[in-house]
Every structure is written in C-alpha cells, then in structure tokens.
C-alpha cells in the first residue's frame, strides 16, 4: 500500500480528479453555510467532544450498561473480539434462519470486517441497499468515501453498470431515471429478504437503544420488512444518555452534507412482536487504540466524513488511494493502529494544514495525531520496520517535505491556491498537472536542492 503511488493513478484522469476535488469542496461549503445558522455550533462541538471523552474513559461501564438494558428490552447482545468472530456470529444466525438472501444498509464496520466476501463464500447473496453502495457493489469496488461511497464515479459510469445489471436504457444518464430503476430493483430485494443487517450510528447506554441515520430510508425498509435484524457496532459508538443524541444529531448531518438532519433517524429499542433483534459489539483493535494515549481520541469519530471533504489531499487523491476501509484524515490516524507497516504512508498523505481538526464535530486533533504517527513510523523505520522496501522508504522520506511546503501554502489559502502550486510535480498526488505559471528553471533548481536535503 503506497498512497503517493495510488494517488498518481487517480490523477491520470485530470478532468475527473478536478471534478472530485471541486465537488467535495462544494460539500464542505454547504457544511459551512449550515453551521453558521447555529450560534452555539462551537459549544455543541465541545459538548460532543466531552461526552465522547467521558464515555471512552468509562467504556467498560457503559458497555455493560448497554448490554444490561438492551437485553432487558429483548435485544440479543453478542460480543466479538475481532472481525472473524463478528462474521461468524452473523454467519451462525443466518444458518439458524436458513437464510440465503440478506439486505444490508451502509455499515463501515461490516466493510472493515470484510463481511460480504465471508457471506458470499457461504453461498449467501448480500445486497447492499444504500444506492451508492449498491452501485459500487455492482462494480465490485469498495466505498471511496464513508458518507458518499460512489463519489469517485460519474453518471456515465453508473448508467453503464445499470444498463448491464438492471437493463436500463443504454446511455441514459438521468439521475432521476437511474435512481428510480434502483428503487424498483431494491424494493424487490427488500420484500424478499428475511434478514436485514445494519450498522449503528449511536447506541445509548441508559436506554439500551441504538440509532441509525439515513436519508434514503434503506435501513428502515430492510429491517421492518425482515423477520430478523442484525445490527453491528464498534464498541466506541456508545453515548451515555438519550438526551446526548440531541447534541450528536444536530452535529452529524450538518457536518456530513450540510443538511440540518438526516431524513430518517430511527431508534431501535426492542424487536417487533414475533421478530428478532441482534446487536453485535465489536472490538477489532479498538481497545488497543484506547490504550494509546496520543491516539485514543480518534475513537470519538462519528463518521461524518467532514475531514475528507475538506482535506486538500483527499480531494485530490481520491478515497481509493488510501487503501484502507476508512480513507482520508481520520482513516490515516486509525489505519496505522491496525497495521503500521501496511499503512505507513498514510500519515504522510497530509499537508498538516489542520483543516480536518477545524471541521471535526467531535474535535479530534486529527492533524496533530498525523504528526504523532509520523514520529512513530520514523522511529519504527529505524528499528523494527527495517524490512520495509526502499520504495516505501522513498515514499516516506521524500514526501514529507513536499507535504510540509505545500501545507504552509495551503494554510494561507485552502481553496483558492493556484493549481500550479497545488499540482506541482513535487507532490506525487499532483502528477498529471501542468505548471503554467511557474518559472520552470528556478523551480527545478529549487526542487533539486531540496530533494537532496531530504
């Protein structure tokens, strides 16, 4: 996994890369516009941050509370130490139900656990029901963004795959037409599925309920039509009190897309009569991250995606370049905790401009943690990670300078910086861009001199 190399691939299609960059910036601007209507925005961020800090400091207590209250409500609670156990628990439930068709709504955790390939191996047909997720499932791609999974695709791509899979008209790229085709296709799946799998946005310890937020209503369509609902959550998704939801629901959608709230915010507390409700609590490395003092508060993340939309590197390198389940700035501080060697280039995929930390609704000091990971990786490079290839070393030790320099420039102007600086050849993710305004000679000299220093 090498971020700069992957970014080079992304930037080959110049027009598409520029569209990606600009589109995500528009989402960032929408977020800005909506938060300005909330005078207490900063206070809400501080509250959210403190609530999460508090919860993480007593996570064992709240997990037991959640289990106790959820069980009393008739929810079957399961614990999974890792991805394999999570998948096995689901596999077993499906086996018991003799179920071969499941519908699934967006869940980054099941992506992290590679649930789909596991179930497919057991001969189970898993249908992702979020429109963006369904599109990338047809294309056998992972999501490139945690909120907008198909943001890397154009209408024409989607039209082509829908023509192939759903027999829509060839060349019809109208989003209304394509969405309607997907609606009909997925309705059929909803009506057939006996088991629905979902993620969880928040779980409330005091009530034993959990909350799922969507705009499409796909999670609700799945679970209310199925007989069994399996919800999967990382152990960090907890909050103590029902009233804390007021804080988080005000922050989440505004940060994510600039909406005032997601259109469906469903609170599940007990199964419908005659139905089953399962809740799986998954660790998969989270307790390890909790033990790392400097990186602990990365677990406060509510997966809004704002840090991605604002990140000058993410916007210009695409989600796939990170090669991790969660891309972008937050992915770059979570992934090294999972596999330091594999993800060693990610903490360098940043200008350290701090824009991610500025927009984060739970005030994670993302850019500082990126810097901390760089220290850790550089240390590890000297000792235990000696086996890293030269290519990787090259990625690490030549890029930081580039990132640092461009970072200083970007601090000055995140948005309006001329392409000639953003996409200069020093930044590997800027390859494929020309340099119309810079005096080529002096730049080259400067580059050579500095490269030697690095």
């Amino acid at each position, binding site marked *: 996994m090498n971020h700069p190399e992957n970014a080079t691939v992304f930037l080959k299609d110049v027009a598409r890369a520029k569209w990606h960059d600009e589109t995500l910036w528009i989402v960032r601007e929408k977020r800005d516009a909506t938060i300005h209507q909330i*005078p207490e925005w900063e*206070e809400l961020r501080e509250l959210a941050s*403190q609530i999460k*800090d*508090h919860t*993480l*400091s007593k*996570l064992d207590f709240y*997990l037991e509370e959640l*289990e106790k209250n959820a069980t009393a409500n008739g929810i079957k609670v399961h*614990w*999974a*130490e890792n991805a394999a156990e999570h998948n096995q628990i689901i596999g077993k439930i499906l086996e018991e139900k003799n179920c071969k068709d499941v519908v699934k709504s967006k869940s980054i955790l099941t992506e992290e656990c590679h649930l789909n390939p596991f179930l497919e191996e057991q001969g189970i047909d898993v249908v992702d*029901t979020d*429109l963006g997720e369904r599109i990338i499932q047809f294309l056998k791609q992972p999501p490139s963004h945690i909120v*907008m*999974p*198909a943001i890397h*695709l*154009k*209408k024409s791509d*989607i039209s082509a795959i829908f023509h192939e899979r759903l027999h829509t008209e060839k060349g019809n790229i109208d*989003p*209304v037409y*394509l*969405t*309607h085709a*997907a*609606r009909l296709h*997925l*309705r059929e799946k909803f009506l057939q599925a006996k088991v629905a799998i979902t993620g969880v946005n928040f779980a409330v310890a005091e*009530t034993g309920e959990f909350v799922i937020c969507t*705009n*499409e*209503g*796909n999670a*609700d*369509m799945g679970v*209310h*039509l199925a007989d069994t609902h399996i919800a999967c959550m990382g*152990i960090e998704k907890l909050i*103590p009190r*029902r009233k804390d*939801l*007021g804080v988080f*629901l*005000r922050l989440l959608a505004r940060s994510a897309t600039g909406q*005032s*709230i997601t*259109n469906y*915010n*469903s609170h599940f*507390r*007990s199964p*419908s009569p005659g139905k089953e409700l399962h809740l799986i609590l998954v*660790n998969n490395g989270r*307790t*390890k991250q*909790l*033990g790392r003092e400097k990186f602990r508060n990365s677990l406060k993340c509510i997966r809004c995606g704002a840090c991605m939309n604002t990140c000058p590197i993410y916007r210009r390198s695409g989600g796939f370049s990170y090669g991790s389940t969660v891309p972008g700035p937050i992915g770059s501080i979570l992934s090294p905790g999972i596999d330091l060697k594999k993800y060693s280039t990610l903490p360098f995929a940043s200008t350290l401009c701090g824009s991610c930390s500025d927009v984060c609704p739970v005030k994670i000091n993302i850019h500082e943690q990126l810097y901390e990971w760089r220290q850790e990786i550089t240390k590890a490079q000297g000792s235990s990670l000696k086996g890293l290839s030269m290519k990787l070393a090259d990625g690490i030790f030549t890029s930081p300078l580039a990132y640092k320099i461009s970072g200083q420039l970007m601090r000055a102007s995140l948005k309006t910086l001329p392409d000639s600086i953003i996409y200069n050849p020093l930044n590997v993710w800027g390859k494929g861009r020309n340099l119309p305004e810079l005096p080529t000679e002096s730049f080259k000299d400067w580059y050579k001199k500095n490269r030697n220093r690095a």
Partner: protein
Amino acid sequence: MSSKVSILAAIKGLNLEEKPLPDIPDFAVATDLVETYTNSLNGNKGTVVSKEELEQLIAESEFPKIYSSSLTFEKFTNCQLPLHPAGFADLDLAIIEGQVASAENAAIWLDESNLDLRAIPFITAHLVIVIRKENIVGNMHEAYERIGMTKSGFGVFIAGPSKTADIEQSLVIGAHGAMSLRVVIL
C-alpha cells in the same frame, strides 16, 4: 475466555482516569416556531399543507390505497392493516400523527403509539404527518426533553422524504422510502 470478558478486561486494564460528563445547557430557539418549522421543512424538500389543502389533494389525486392512523383523517382510510408489512408495498398514502417536532430541522418524532406498523412511513409512496402547533419545539434538545424516557420499541425522527445524492451529487427525491412528505400543522 469469552470475548465479552476479554474486551471488558482490556478496557479495565487501562485504568483510565474518568473524564467529566457535561450537562447540556438550554440554547436560545426561534421565536416563531411555525415559520421556522416551515422553512426547515422546505429545506428538506418537504412541504407544509393545511388540512383543507390535504383534503383537496386527496379528492383530486384519487390515491387508490390510503391508510390513516391519524384520527383527524381517519375517514380517508380505505384499506385494512395487513398482517405482514409487505402487504403495504402498494400503499399510496399514509397519514400519521406526530408527537413532537423540532423547528430547527423539521424533524418529527413518531413512535409505536403512532405507527400501527413500523414499516408504514417508509414503505408508503407518499407520507403525511400531522402535528399540533403546541407540539412544535425549538430544537432537538427540547424535543428529547419532551420525549423523555418514554419506552417504545421503535421511534423515529422523520425530517423529509426519502432522498439520495449518490449519483454525481444530484439530489433525487424518492430513493427507497416515501417520495413526498407533507406536514399538516393543526
């Protein structure tokens, strides 16, 4: 060792120092709640309609299958509640009473006491929610305060029609759920 034991032991072993849990203060809210609510709903692509407008719409559109769990519009119900929610796959219009609405974002709280079947507000082609003026509050904090600790197996804040922007960020209404949301303020 079970995973529950190992996960809890791993956390306990860290001996983390407890951080304080903050109180959530009261925040100022809009003075004209109906107007704020209406604007917020428009932003979410829903519309506020009067009782008369809704009645007129029903008269003119001739929805083949209507189910109202709201007593105010009960007379329009022309079908039975099915045993399985799939029986409502062809429901054209559902009318439901909402409990409390947050003006700031147009979200309306419904729980099982309002929903005869959990699937109704999602599976219906068009959705109408009825809310009483005195049940519109300023923001989500006030809404949760009103809801309090009520115990319902399922509850939902609905703030607009089903929508998606997954195809090149173009907003499309009617992804999987209701293709429209109308709110009647009584």
